[in-house]
């Protein structure tokens, strides 16, 4: 034995041995802690970092016109993106020249985008080129080893082929906002999901929106996909068939574009059921800007301009604009006069007097019509007659009329943010509070649709169109049918549905009463009335012009708003059309011809035999 070399060598060797065992024991203890005590925790950690869910966005349903023509669809858009996982290993700024050359993108723009990445540390992908071409994609694929940070991403992009046409009705889509995410109906969405932000896109969002699928993939430490574990296909959204007739819509848009101020609204509706055939509002906007432009500086600038523009292109004037209705207001007033027996069919005559004196103030009529009957007063738009009729009804009579014609609420059209008409019913409490009492002069002004009356174009069309169909006020609507969509994988089929037309509100009139008002409306165009210039032989238009002052009384402010609200043919209406042209002047001169343009388009399609006579009539003007 070697023990004789030093006094305690064996003990020292044993010490080394014990130290070795202790160290191994420490390691064993640590392994026990990591694998047995914390094993499940690290199992989960490992899984979380290797399994990624890549959403497959679902295409939204298309929006079609009543004949199945596409108004909105989704098409795949290829984007070149920077992947966040990759970028932390490289300095992309050094590669900007390569990117710019390969993708044919402005270098300055790339630098801008890369700087943006720095500001948002949590980003997943950053689009550096939208709507990439096949060449771009090929370039990215070919350089995938060299530039793994570049990836091609496909997502369906909303496409509005007609641009500004029907934009207010269709609306647009965008990323769900943080505010929306708090609402229960959006609770299952996640940031970045696309939802309808306006118009039909918003109103029918839950039908149009599909259910996104996902790819469950295995990724390596650099986020490169190693294997696909599971694919859940998305379920596309349901198609929406609208009541819109694209031809009429284009005609309406063209009329607004031709108008002097290019500001206003035109609506065409089927008076027999409330189907909106056309709804145009001008100035308009291009929904594509909202869809494609959000990620680019130019797009953002354009969107900001829309919001700042004093002509308010984002406003749907047809349902959100409030204007004094002017003389078009005389039609519900006439019906109210008969209903409330201020006048009768037998004796409907009231004095015109060239105007009326209230207190010491004289308010004039446009002419002197003697003591006309109701139909003549309508045809000639006699203010004096309606001043007196309004006074006979009194403000309470007017409020009763407002309730009868449902002017105190929105029409219920299937679009978001519809505004209600404002009437004496709404204003009376404010006026009484401020001025002590409701004065007769206000009743007089309210009788001819001025002052305390501010009507939405849709509400005026709805009420006047009802006169042509025995007083049936239908709820205007744009949805005709929502198509069903079949089951996809685990997602069940979603049934289709058609618009259920609510029972119309009936304006009670006797046949005689109706005939009297109708005769007046017919005369406006066909018997030397205010809008006789737009007469179409063989297709009698019944309507009412309106010229709404919007300057303060006695001052020379902006020009009047021109109204024309009508339906045709007069005694068996197929279509009702209205137009308002802002600050253009007389209704007969500016709004009626615009309405006529829509009728022409309607006739070319449905009554081509009448088109010949129509051109003759036009030449005869």
């Amino acid at each position, binding site marked *: *034995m*070697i023990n004789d*070399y*030093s*006094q305690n*060598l*064996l003990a*020292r*060797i044993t*010490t*080394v*041995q014990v*130290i*070795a*065992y202790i*160290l*191994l024991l*420490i*390691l*064993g203890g*640590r*392994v*026990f802690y*990591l*694998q*047995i005590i*914390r*094993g*499940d*925790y*690290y*199992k989960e*950690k*490992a*899984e979380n*970092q*290797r399994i990624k869910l890549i959403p497959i966005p679902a295409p939204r349903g298309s929006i079609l016109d009543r004949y199945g023509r596409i108004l909105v669809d989704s098409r795949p858009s290829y984007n070149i993106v920077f992947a966040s996982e990759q970028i*932390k290993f490289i300095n992309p700024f050094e590669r900007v020249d390569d990117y710019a050359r390969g993708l044919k993108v402005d270098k300055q723009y790339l630098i801008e985008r890369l700087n943006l990445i720095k500001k948002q540390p949590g980003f997943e992908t950053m689009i550096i080129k939208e709507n990439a071409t096949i060449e771009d994609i090929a370039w990215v694929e070919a350089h995938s080893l060299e530039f793994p940070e570049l990836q091609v991403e496909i997502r369906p992009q909303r496409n509005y082929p007609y641009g500004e046409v029907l934009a207010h009705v269709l609306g647009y889509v965008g990323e769900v906002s943080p505010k929306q995410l708090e609402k229960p109906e959006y609770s299952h969405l996640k940031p970045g999901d696309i939802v309808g932000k306006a118009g039909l896109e918003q109103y029918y969002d839950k039908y149009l929106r599909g259910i996104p699928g996902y790819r469950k993939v*295995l*990724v*390596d*430490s*650099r986020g490169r996909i*190693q*294997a696909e*574990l599971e694919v859940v296909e998305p379920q596309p959204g349901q198609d929406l068939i609208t009541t819109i007739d694209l031809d009429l819509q284009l005609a309406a848009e063209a009329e607004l574009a031709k108008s002097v101020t290019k500001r206003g609204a035109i609506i065409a509706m089927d008076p027999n059921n409330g189907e909106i055939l056309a709804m145009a509002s001008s100035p308009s906007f291009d929904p594509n800007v909202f869809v494609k432009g959000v990620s680019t500086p130019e797009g953002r600038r354009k969107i900001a301009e829309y919001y700042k523009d004093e002509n308010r292109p984002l406003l749907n004037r047809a349902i959100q604009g409030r204007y004094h209705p002017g003389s078009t207001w005389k039609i519900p007033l006439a019906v109210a006069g008969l209903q409330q027996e201020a006048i009768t069919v037998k004796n409907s005559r009231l004095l015109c007097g060239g105007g009326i004196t209230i207190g010491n103030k004289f308010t004039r009529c446009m002419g002197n019509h003697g003591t006309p009957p109701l139909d003549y007063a309508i045809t000639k738009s006699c203010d004096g007659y309606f001043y007196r009729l309004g006074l006979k009804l009194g403000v309470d009579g007017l409020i009763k009329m407002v309730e009868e014609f449902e002017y105190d609420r929105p029409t219920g059209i299937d679009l978001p943010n519809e505004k209600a008409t404002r009437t004496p019913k709404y204003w009376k409490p404010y006026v009484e509070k401020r001025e002590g009492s409701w004065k007769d002069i206000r009743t007089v002004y309210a009788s001819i649709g001025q002052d305390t009356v501010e009507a939405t174009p849709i509400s005026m069309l709805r009420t006047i169109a009802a006169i042509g169909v025995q007083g049936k006020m239908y709820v205007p609507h744009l949805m005709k049918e929502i198509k069903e969509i079949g089951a996809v994988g685990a997602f069940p089929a979603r049934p289709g549905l058609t618009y259920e037309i609510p029972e119309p509100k009936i304006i009670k009139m006797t046949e005689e009463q109706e005939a009297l008002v109708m005769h007046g409306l017919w005369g406006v165009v066909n018997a030397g009335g205010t809008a006789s210039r737009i007469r179409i032989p063989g297709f009698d238009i019944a309507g009412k012009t309106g010229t709404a002052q919007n300057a303060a009384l006695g001052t020379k402010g902006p020009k009047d708003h021109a109204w024309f609200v009508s339906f045709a043919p007069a005694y068996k209406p197929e279509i009702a059309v209205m137009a308002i042209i802002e600050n253009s002047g007389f209704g007969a001169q500016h709004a009626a011809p615009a309405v006529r343009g829509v009728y022409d388009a309607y006739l070319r399609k449905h009554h081509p035999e009448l088109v010949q006579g129509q051109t003759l009539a036009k030449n005869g003007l």
Partner: protein
Amino acid sequence: MIGIIEKRNFREFDFLLLILAISIVCFGIWQIYNAQPNEIYWQKQIIGLIIAVLIALVVSMIDYRTLIHFAPAFYALGLILLILVLTPLGVKVKGQQAWLKLPIVGQFQPSEFVKIPVVLMLAKYFGERKGVQPLTLKEMMVGVAILVAPVGLILLEPDAGQALTYIPLLATVIFLSAIKIRWVVLSLIAVLILAPVSFYVGVKTGKIKQYQIERINVILDPENADPRGYGYHTFQSIITVGQGGVTGIKGDAEKSQSALKFLPEPHTDFIFAVTAENTGFLGCVSLLLAYALLLSRLIMGAKFSPDRAGMLVIMAFVGGMTFQIFINIGMTLGILPVIGVPLPLMSAGLSSILSTFIAIGFVLSVRMRRFVNY
């Protein structure tokens, strides 16, 4: 050479030690395969094992005393190799010029092999001292001097991890060479006090850089200390070990942290994490037990050594191996900073396996000559 071996010697051949070592390497090859199934590391390791076993057998046939006798020559050769590494003959891998590429022999890592002549030198010097008198300061300084040259050259590569593995060689030899226990205790206390104090002073005076502080923080709290930066490797290693659970993922490539490249250097420095992942707690404990058994067997060999020099060689080898196992696995388990040291017998790498088996051959040689009388 075979003729020299006497039957009696052959009976003393420590088959258990050799089989134990070969078993660990085989287990390691399986893990190298798990770590990098698509690379040829595991095949290389098989070839390495065969060569290593042959060399170990050859070494065991030679009388260890002859080898110790020629220690200065080996030592000089080792230093030449380490110098050559720093010349253009050296190969740079990941910022470290630690490899030497020579014709015929191929590429190898001299710092792995030079441990052997260093141990022989230490054994020669300290083995020759007689009697029970305590170690003098001068003797200690000679020991330090033996270490300084190779360690200095290795630090120039720079390979701090390898340099570190030389320290326990000297420490073990000195401890077993009748150093006064009070010196041992004093130096232990000094380390325990000076390490934190110098760290504190270093931080205060700015001598210790921020990234070095980060590396320490990683050990204290691997999960929250910047898992994308310095903590990344440690944290990924901990996850890899942890997800092994009791029985491991058994080579499931879809779960493998190394196949998905979350785990860095899976076939070399982090081979234990791969082992833990694939074989779980049972595999880890088995491996640790195998190491314990191997070390016990070596220590038994040391106890039976016919002379002091043989004992010192084996014990230096035990000290170095224990240290390396602890540093490597400790790093893998997140209780020690990341230091690039291979796990003996497990990590892929011809240099490491060859040098280890040369040492084992040496131990076998000592063991076979236990009954030789002077």
